[in-house]
C-alpha cells in the first residue's frame, strides 16, 4: 500500500507542493495510524503532514480526490489481487480461452469480460495495464494516445480486434464495448497526465518567465508574473525584516552590570548581557514610468507595491517629466488600481530626469541620511533635457548609497539621449536589470549588504 502512497506523494509534488523524503516517511506513519478505510480522515491526515500552508492544503485535497477517484472501483479487492497479480495475468489467458472454447466463439479475455459486463474486473485490469505500461511517466499531452493504445494492447486488444473481425452475433456489441474501453483508457491516461505532468509544465513556464525580458511579456502571463513577483518580494522582505537587535549571549556587559547592581554594593545580582544593534536600512525608491519604459514600469510598480506591502518604512516615488511621492497611493489602493492611478498622475510622459530630480530634491532631500539607500529604476533617457547630475551627486553625498537599475543593456548606455554615463559616477552600483531574476539578485545583494 505504501507504493500507492509514494505515487500520491509524487503526484502531490507535481502540483507544486514541496515534500521532502522525511515528510513522505511521516505520511506513511500517519497512514498506518489512521488506516486506509476512512478516506476523509486519511485526507485530513495527509494534509496535516504534507501541506504546510492553507493553499497547499487545498491543492493537496484536490490532488487527493483526483488521485483516489480512479481506484474507487477496484478498491474493495485491492489488497488481494496485488500479490498474485503476475501469475494471474499469465494464467488467466489460457483459462479464459478454454472457458470461451465451448461456446464455440474462440473469444478473447476482453470479449468475455465485456459480454459478461464485469465492470469491476475490467477496471482492475485497466489499472494493472496502466501500471505496466508506465503511464505515470507521461509528461506531455501528445502522449495520451500512445499510452492509451499501449494499455489496451496490454489488456489484449489485439485478440478482441480479431474476435470482432471474425464477426458473429455479438460483434456489434463487442465493437461498442471496444469503443467504451478506448474512452475509459483515454480518460485514465488524461487523469494521470493531470496528476503527474502538471508540475513539469508549470515549473518550466515559471522558469521561462523568470528569465524573460520584462519588456516583452505576453498579456496572458501577467497574472502568473504577478504571483511570482509577490512571492519574490515577500521572500526578500522576510530576510530584510530580520530583527535588529542581536543579543550576544555569554558576553557580560560589565559596565552596565556594575551600575545596575549599585544598590547591592556592586555584588552582581542582576546580570546584563551585551547586545548588538543592527540598524534598519531605509529605502527610497524612484521609479521611472515614462513612455520609454512603460512596459517595464508595470512590473517595477508591481514589485514596488509588493515590497511596500511587506516592508514598513519604504518610500516610493514615481516620475516621468516630474516626480511625485506615491507611498500613500500604494498604501491606499490594491495593486491594479494603484498602478493605474500612478500612471494617470505621472505616467506616459516623456521623461525629464533633471526636472524629476529637482522635484525629488524638494520632496525628500532633507530626509536623506546616512542610513538611506536610494534606488532608481529607469533608463536614464532624458530626451535631451538637462541631466542635473549635480543633484544626483548631492543625493549620493547625503545618503548611504545610490543604486541604479537600468532595463537597458550596458552597451546602450550613453548612446542617443542616454545620460547614464553622467549619472554613473555617483552610483555605488549601476547595473542592468531586465528580468525578474536579475531584479531579485540585485535587491538581494542590496539588502544583504545593508543588513
Amino acid at each position, binding site marked *: 500500500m505504501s507504493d500507492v502512497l509514494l505515487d500520491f506523494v509524487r503526484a502531490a509534488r507535481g502540483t507544486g507542493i514541496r515534500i521532502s523524503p522525511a515528510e513522505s516517511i511521516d505520511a506513511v506513519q500517519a497512514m498506518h495510524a489512521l488506516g486506509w478505510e476512512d478516506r*476523509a480522515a486519511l485526507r485530513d491526515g495527509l494534509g*496535516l503532514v504534507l501541506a*504546510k500552508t492553507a493553499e497547499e492544503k487545498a491543492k493537496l485535497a484536490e490532488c487527493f480526490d483526483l488521485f483516489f477517484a480512479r481506484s474507487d472501483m477496484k478498491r474493495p479487492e485491492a489488497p488481494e489481487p496485488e500479490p498474485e497479480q503476475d501469475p494471474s495475468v499469465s494464467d488467466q489467458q489460457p483459462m479464459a480461452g478454454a472457458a470461451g472454447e465451448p461456446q464455440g466463439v474462440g473469444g478473447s479475455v476482453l470479449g468475455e469480460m465485456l459480454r459478461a459486463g464485469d465492470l469491476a474486473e475490467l477496471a482492475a485490469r485497466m489499472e494493472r495495464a496502466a501500471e505496466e505500461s508506465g503511464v505515470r511517466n507521461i509528461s506531455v499531452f501528445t502522449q495520451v494516445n500512445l499510452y492509451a493504445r499501449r494499455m489496451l494492447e496490454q489488456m489484449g486488444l489485439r485478440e478482441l480486434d480479431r474476435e470482432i473481425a471474425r464477426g458473429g452475433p455479438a460483434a456489434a456489441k463487442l465493437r461498442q464495448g471496444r469503443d467504451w474501453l478506448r474512452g475509459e483508457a483515454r480518460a485514465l491516461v488524461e487523469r494521470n497526465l493531470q496528476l503527474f505532468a502538471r508540475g513539469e509544465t508549470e515549473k518550466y513556464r515559471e522558469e521561462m518567465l523568470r528569465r524573460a525580458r520584462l519588456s516583452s511579456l505576453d498579456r496572458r502571463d501577467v497574472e502568473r508574473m504577478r504571483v511570482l513577483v509577490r512571492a519574490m518580494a515577500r521572500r526578500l522582505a522576510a530576510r530584510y525584516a530580520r530583527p535588529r537587535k542581536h543579543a550576544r*549571549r555569554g558576553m557580560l556587559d560589565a559596565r552596565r552590570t556594575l551600575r545596575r547592581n549599585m544598590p547591592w554594593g556592586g555584588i552582581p*545580582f542582576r546580570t546584563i548581557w551585551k547586545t548588538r544593534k543592527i540598524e534598519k536600512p531605509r529605502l527610497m525608491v524612484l521609479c521611472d514610468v515614462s513612455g520609454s519604459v512603460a512596459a517595464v514600469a508595470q512590473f517595477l510598480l508591481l514589485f514596488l507595491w509588493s515590497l511596500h506591502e511587506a516592508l514598513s518604512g519604504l518610500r516610493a516615488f514615481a516620475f516621468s517629466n516630474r516626480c511625485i511621492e506615491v507611498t500613500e497611493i500604494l498604501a491606499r489602493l490594491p495593486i491594479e488600481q494603484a498602478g493605474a492611478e500612478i500612471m494617470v498622475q505621472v505616467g506616459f510622459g516623456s521623461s525629464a530626469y533633471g526636472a524629476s530630480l529637482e522635484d525629488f530634491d524638494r520632496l525628500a532631500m532633507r530626509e536623506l541620511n546616512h542610513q538611506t539607500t536610494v534606488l532608481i529604476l529607469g533608463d536614464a533617457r532624458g530626451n535631451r533635457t538637462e541631466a542635473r547630475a549635480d543633484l544626483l551627486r548631492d543625493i549620493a553625498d547625503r545618503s548611504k548609497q545610490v543604486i541604479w537599475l537600468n532595463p537597458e543593456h550596458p552597451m546602450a548606455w550613453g548612446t542617443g539621449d542616454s545620460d547614464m554615463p553622467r549619472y554613473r559616477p555617483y552610483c555605488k552600483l549601476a547595473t542592468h536589470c531586465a528580468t525578474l531574476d536579475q531584479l531579485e539578485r540585485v535587491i538581494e545583494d542590496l539588502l544583504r549588504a545593508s543588513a
Partner: protein
Amino acid sequence: MDGGARLVTSIEAVETGLDGFGYIASRQIATAVFLAQRLNKPILVEGPAGVGKTELAKAAAQWLGLPLIRMQCYEGLDESKALYEWKYGKQLLYTQILKDKLAPMLGESEGLEGALAKLHGVGDIFYSEQFLEPRPLLKALQQPQGAVLLVDEVDKADQEFEAFLLEVLSDFQVSIPELGTIVAPVPPLTILTSNNLRDLGDALKRRCLHLHIGFPEPKLEARILATRAPEAAEGLRRQLVAFVQALRGLELKKLPSVSETIDWARVLVLLHARELDTQIVRDTLNVLLKYEVDIAAVEPQILAMVDKAKSDALTPNYGVAM
C-alpha cells in the same frame, strides 16, 4: 506514551474528549491531535486571531489531565528565558553565606595549590539542579507524566530562536553543558501557534503537523456558541451566527472571529436581547469590529444584514446539530 497520559484510541475519542471540556473540534483538529499523539510530533497551528488556537492547547491539557506549560514568544526571546538559567543570585548569596565555612576549610590546606584542589570539589555544587531555574521548555521536558507544551505565537520570536526550538522539538531532549543531556521521560504534546506575522522556516514546518484553523462553518460555529454561551437563547444564537457569517463575506480590515462571536453573544445576553434588531446591532457593533473604518463600512448595511440574518437563521444550515 503509556505514561500517565491518556492513550488516544481514535479520532472520535479526541472529538468527544475535547467536547467534554467545552472545545468543539472540527474533524481536522481532532485528526491533528490524534496524529500528534501517535507520531509524537508537534502541531503547528496557524490561522487568524481568535479562532481558538490557544484554546485548543488548554482544552487538550484538561482532557488529557496533564499540566499545561505555556511559553509566550516575543522578539528577543532567547534560551535563557525559554530553556533554563542558573540562579545567579542564589549562587552568589550562598557563596557569601558559606564564606565563613570555606575559610577554615581552605585555611587548613597547604599552599595555594591545595586550596585550589579543594575548591574544585566544591565548584560543582553550585552548578547542580538546586541552582537551575527551569524555564518553560525544560519544565515541559521534566514532567514525569508528560505535559501539554504551548508555544504561543512562535512567529513573534526571532529566527535564531526558531532554529533552537527545532533542536528541542525534534528529539525532545536538551543538553545542559554542566549537567548533561536531559531527555523527556514522556514527550510532551506540543502545540505551536502562529499568526503568520512572518513566514516560519521550512525546517520548522517540516518537523510539525501543520494545522490550519480557519473561520468555522455555520454549523460548527453554532455548536461552539451553544457550548460557550449557553445562556443565549437558541433563536438568538442562530441569528448571531448568520450575521457574523455574512459579515465575514464583506471586505473588512479585520474579520470577526469566533472569540468575537462569543463575546458578542454574551454582550447581547447582558443587554437582555431576545433577537437581533437594528438598534442593538448598531450599539454593539464595536464588540465585533475593531476598526473604525470597518464599523463605518458596515453601518449603512445593518438593516439589510439583520433582515437577511433573521431569514437565514431559519434554514437548517444554522441548526444546532447535537
